[in-house]
C-alpha cells in the first residue's frame, strides 16, 4: 500500500469506491499490484475521478466532440445530396476530419488584432472551459457521480447559464463590428431561451420532488418524457436555441456575420471557441437524458457492471445529440425578431403549462 501522505488518503480509500467492471477485473487486480501504476489506476477508477476523466468527463467529451462535428457535416451533406468530409481516412468516410482540422488549427498563427483587448481576448476562450466542464461533475451515471448534492440540478443550470456571459465578453474583447452584432444577438437569444429553459427544469424538479440528480434518475421508472412531454419539448427547443443550432443559429450565423462573436479568432483559439457550442450541446444532452430519458437506467449487463449504466447513458445522450444535429439539415435560419417572438409567446406559454403539469404531478404524488 502506498500512502499519499497528504490529507491522510490511502490507496484503500480509492479502492473502496472504485468502478467495478467484472469483465476486466483480473486485469485491474493485476495492475493494482504494481507499485506506481496501481495507484494511478486506483485513482482513475475512483468513482468521482472516473466521472471527471472518463464518462461523462474529458475522454468522452473529446470523443463526442470529434464525432459530432464530423457527423453533423456528414448528415447534412447526405440530406442535401452532397458527399461531406471524405478524403481524410477515406475508408471510414472521413471520420477523423475534425481531428485533422484541430491539428491544422493548432499549428496556425493566432492573430490578435490591434483593436482587441488583448488580455481578455486571449483569456476568455480558455476561461470559458470552467462553466463548460464544471457541470460534468454533477451529472450522475448510475452510481458514478463526481459530487452528489441535493442542489445538483440548480447548480448545473446556473453554471450552464454562465456560458453566454463569457461569449458576450469574448465579443466585447474582439472589438469588431461583426463581433458586436453577434454579441448583441447572443445576449438577445440568452434572454429568449433562459426563462423557458429554467421553467422546464423547474417543472421537472416539481415532478420528481427533488433536485438531486441521482434520486431523479432512480425515480424514473417511467421516463420523464412520458410524465411531462411538454417540458421535454420546451427543454429540447431551448437546447436548440442555447447551442445555436439551426433554425436558431442567430448569434453565429456564418453566412451573415461570419461566426459573430468569434469572427476575429484564428488558429487554435478559433478551434476552442468554435467547439463551445458543441460542448454546451453535450452537457445539455446529458442533462436531457438525465431529466427526461432516465439517465443510466436500462437493462443491466452483468459482465460490464457499472459500465452498463455508462453505455445506456451514452446511447441516450448520442440520440439527443443526433436529433439536434439533424435539425441543421432541414431548417433555414429564422430572424432574431422571429426567434424572440416564438420564445416570449409560444415557448413561454407552453413552459408555464409544463410547470402547471409539474405542480399537478407533484400534488398527486405520482413519482
Amino acid at each position, binding site marked *: 500500500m502506498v500512502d499519499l501522505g497528504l490529507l491522510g488518503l490511502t490507496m484503500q480509500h480509492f479502492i473502496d469506491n472504485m468502478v467495478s467492471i467484472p469483465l476486466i477485473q483480473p486485469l485491474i487486480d493485476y495492475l493494482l499490484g504494481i507499485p506506481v501504476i496501481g495507484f494511478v489506476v486506483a485513482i482513475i477508477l475512483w468513482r468521482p475521478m472516473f466521472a471527471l476523466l472518463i464518462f461523462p468527463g474529458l475522454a468522452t467529451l473529446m470523443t463526442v466532440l470529434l464525432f459530432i462535428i464530423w457527423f453533423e457535416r456528414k*448528415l447534412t451533406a*447526405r*440530406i*442535401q*445530396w*452532397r*458527399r461531406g468530409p471524405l478524403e481524410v481516412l477515406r475508408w471510414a468516410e472521413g471520420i477523423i476530419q475534425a481531428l485533422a482540422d484541430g491539428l491544422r488549427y493548432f499549428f496556425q498563427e493566432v492573430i490578435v488584432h490591434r483593436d482587441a483587448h488583448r488580455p481578455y481576448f486571449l483569456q476568455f476562450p480558455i476561461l470559458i472551459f470552467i462553466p463548460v466542464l464544471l457541470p460534468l461533475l454533477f451529472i450522475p451515471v448510475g452510481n458514478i457521480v463526481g459530487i452528489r448534492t441535493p442542489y445538483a440540478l440548480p447548480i448545473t443550470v446556473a453554471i450552464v447559464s454562465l456560458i453566454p456571459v463569457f461569449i458576450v465578453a469574448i465579443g466585447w474583447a474582439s472589438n469588431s463590428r461583426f463581433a458586436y452584432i453577434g454579441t448583441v444577438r447572443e445576449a438577445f437569444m440568452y434572454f429568449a431561451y433562459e426563462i423557458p429553459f429554467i421553467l422546464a427544469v423547474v417543472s421537472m424538479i416539481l415532478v420528481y420532488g427533488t433536485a438531486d440528480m441521482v434520486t431523479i434518475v432512480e425515480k424514473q421508472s417511467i421516463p420523464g418524457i412520458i410524465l411531462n412531454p411538454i417540458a421535454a419539448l420546451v427543454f429540447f427547443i431551448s437546447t436548440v436555441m442555447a447551442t445555436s443550432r439551426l433554425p436558431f443559429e442567430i448569434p453565429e450565423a456564418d453566412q451573415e456575420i461570419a461566426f459573430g462573436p468569434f469572427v476575429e479568432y484564428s488558429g487554435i483559439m478559433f478551434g476552442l471557441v468554435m467547439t463551445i457550442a458543441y460542448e454546451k450541446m453535450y452537457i445539455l444532452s446529458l442533462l436531457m437524458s438525465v431529466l427526461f430519458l432516465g439517465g443510466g437506467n436500462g437493462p443491466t449487463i452483468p459482465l460490464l457492471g457499472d459500465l452498463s449504466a455508462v453505455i445506456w447513458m451514452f446511447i441516450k445522450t448520442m440520440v439527443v445529440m443526433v436529433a439536434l444535429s*439533424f435539425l441543421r*439539415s*432541414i*431548417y433555414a435560419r429564422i430572424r432574431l425578431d422571429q426567434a424572440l417572438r416564438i420564445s416570449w409567446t409560444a415557448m413561454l406559454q407552453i413552459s408555464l403549462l409544463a410547470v402547471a403539469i409539474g405542480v399537478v404531478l407533484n400534488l398527486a404524488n405520482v413519482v
Partner: protein
Amino acid sequence: MIKIKFPKLKTLDNVKLHLDALVVGAKEAIKPGTITIEYPRERRLLPDSFRGYVLFSPENCISCFQCSFVCPANAIGMKLAANNRYYPTIDYTKCIFCHFCVDSCPGAALRPTKVHDVVYKNMNEMITSTEEMVKPPKIVREDGYTVEYVIDGVKLILRRIKEKDNLIPEFKPHEKVKEYSACVMPESCLACGICVSSCPSEAINLSVKEKEKELKIDKERCTGCGICVKECPVQILSLVRE
C-alpha cells in the same frame, strides 16, 4: 406599394409542415439521392462526339490549311515537316475546344477524343507539336467506374458501370469526295507561278513559251487541298469534282 402579408397558418397546419420537413429529411438521410461523381475514381460517361484533345493522323492530311484558317482562337499553326509538307500544331493555351478544325478537315486527319484532363507543367509544353498530336496524351487513369446520368421518371439518378470508359472512341470519317484543282479561265492566267510554288504536292506544272502559257495540273498528284485556289491572284483556279 404592395405589401405582402405573412401567411397565416393554423397551428395544426404549421405542425404538419414541420413534420413533413422532418420526414423528408429522415428519408433523404436513409436513402440519399446523391448525384456527385467522384471524379478521379470514377468518370462520367461522355458522348463519342465529346470535344476534347485532338488527335492527328498525318497520312490523311493533305496540308490544306483549312484547320488553321477556320480556327477562331488562332490556336493552330502550320509547321513545315521534313517531307516538305505543312502539318498542324495546336496551342492549347489558346484552344477553346470548338472542334471547328475537326469538322472542317476534308481528309479526316484530325479526330476528337474524350480526353479532357491533360496536365502540363508549363505554358511552353501546351504548344503541342505534330509528333505529340499523333499519339494520345499520357494521363493517369484512377477510375474504376464509369458513371452515367439517367433520368428515371422525374428523378435524376446515377448509374455506375464497373468498367473503364474508352477515351479514344472509334472515329467514323465522312465519305471523301475526290476534288481536284482546275483552271477555269486559262486565258486570264498571268503565268505568275504562285500556284506552282504554293502546291505542297508539286502537282502543278507551268510552261511558258513566247505568248503561249500552259498550266498543267496532275490529277493523280493533286490532293484537292485548295491552296492554289486561295493563292491565285486572278482567282481563275477552282476546286472541281469528278
